[in-house]
């Protein structure tokens, strides 16, 4: 069986600068890939390249073995590739429920009418624990709830491949656990997930493998424990101090 997601030599240049350069990796069904790296390393651009929001300068993207390079975002979205945005993008003038219903209206299993989609939106809201605020306006949501809405919108697309761009940013430690549980349960259902995250603890907890990006390129990839011990990763991203502390803590 072909992997759910595969990139081959994926490259994107803005002006002269390569935001993503020569990335090749693949993701098997039901696995979780954590992507980390300093800000500006190209993590969000990678997601944009996969979803078609940004066109690659070189290389290709395959979903379920099918080449989707250059396809428009809605086509890719309808083949059950859903995403969240790092900067949350709610539809401000629609209610929380209507926001989620949009996915039901235009996603892979499109409801026959707007009304039906709105009626079905509550499932996704319930999953992210946002049902209470279904009638609120997105502008009145807290940071954490706005992240939940972003997640619910992605879930309403009934994804096979889910691309999460910093969905835990701004959450309190206590709020991170439910998000991790959700990712785990999605994984159990066979959803393949790519997680971009800064919260190291979170990413270590859910990822089957880790991709470290630096200046657009792959710095290291593999199982999380090995990657975290990689000298280059420590040098470029984690910093010596973090590594030392982590080591000391492990030993003591």
């Amino acid at each position: 069986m072909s992997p759910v997601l595969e990139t081959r030599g994926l490259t994107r240049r803005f002006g002269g600068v390569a935001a993503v350069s020569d990335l090749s990796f693949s993701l098997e069904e039901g696995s979780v890939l954590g992507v980390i790296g300093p800000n500006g390393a190209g993590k969000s651009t990678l997601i944009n390249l996969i979803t078609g929001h940004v066109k690659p300068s070189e290389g290709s993207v395959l979903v379920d073995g099918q080449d989707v390079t250059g396809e428009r975002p809605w086509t890719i979205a309808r083949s059950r590739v859903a995403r969240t945005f790092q900067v949350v993008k709610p539809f401000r003038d629609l209610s929380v429920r209507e926001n989620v219903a949009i996915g039901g209206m235009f996603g892979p299993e499109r409801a026959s009418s707007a009304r039906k989609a709105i009626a079905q939106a509550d499932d996704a809201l319930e999953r992210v624990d946002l049902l209470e605020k279904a009638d609120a306006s997105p502008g009145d949501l807290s940071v954490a709830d706005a992240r939940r809405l972003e997640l619910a919108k992605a879930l309403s697309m009934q994804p096979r491949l889910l691309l999460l761009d910093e969905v835990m940013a701004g959450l309190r430690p206590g709020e991170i656990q439910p998000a991790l549980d959700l990712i785990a349960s999605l994984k159990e259902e066979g959803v393949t997930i790519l997680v971009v995250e800064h919260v190291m603890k979170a990413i270590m907890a859910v990822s089957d493998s880790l991709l470290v990006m630096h200046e657009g390129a792959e710095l290291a990839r593999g199982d999380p424990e090995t990657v975290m011990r990689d000298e280059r990763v420590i040098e470029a991203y984690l910093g010596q101090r973090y590594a030392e502390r982590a080591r000391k803590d492990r030993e003591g």
Partner: protein
Amino acid sequence: MLEVTGLSAGYGQVEVLWDVDLNVGDGEIVALVGSNGAGKTTLLRAVSGLIGASGGELRFDGDSIAGLAPERVVGRGVAHVPEGRRLFPGLTVEENLKAGAFAQRNGADVEHALELFPHLRDRLSQVAGSMSGGEQQMCAIARGLMSRPKLLMIDELSLGLAPKLVEEILERLGKVARLGTALLIVEQDVDAALRIASRGYVLETGRIVSSGKSAELLDDPRVREAYLGIE
């Protein structure tokens, strides 16, 4: 010098900060830490006047600065290096520095900033937008110092910078403080921030949940668990 008491602030209908107390003394380095979206940036924006406070008191050198426009706050001696550096991308480094001295009516003293950041000397005529992230951050801090502030607030110091570079900038900032400018540093790398700061505050969903001497905070299990990623 800076006294924040019971500050509440937010954007439109959404409150982001509740009842925040925070002080910075003369020549002191204070770290403000917390996760993304906790309200650190909002706190700095409220102090520098970019957003209005909905409650509480802001005092600087004993005078209230609540409700002052940002262009006046900087005149009082509070400089703010905003998140993402926010250099003027089409201006040269020298012009950026001169813009930083705008509040200083008696002209710009570029030399003073260049002494602290000698790298910039070779870059003076380069367009700021074309520099690397590290150079931009140095330029942004240098620009902040151009108004000869008594307090310099730096938001997300290490954003997008390699750890090595962060070390270097932190070292420079130690020198800045020794020369008499107090620093309020917002930083996600809690470890790094608390290492150069004498005191720290932990902000969590808009409230100060912990504060004290840096060493104490570093040993606080809650801080360690939540922000250092170490259990």
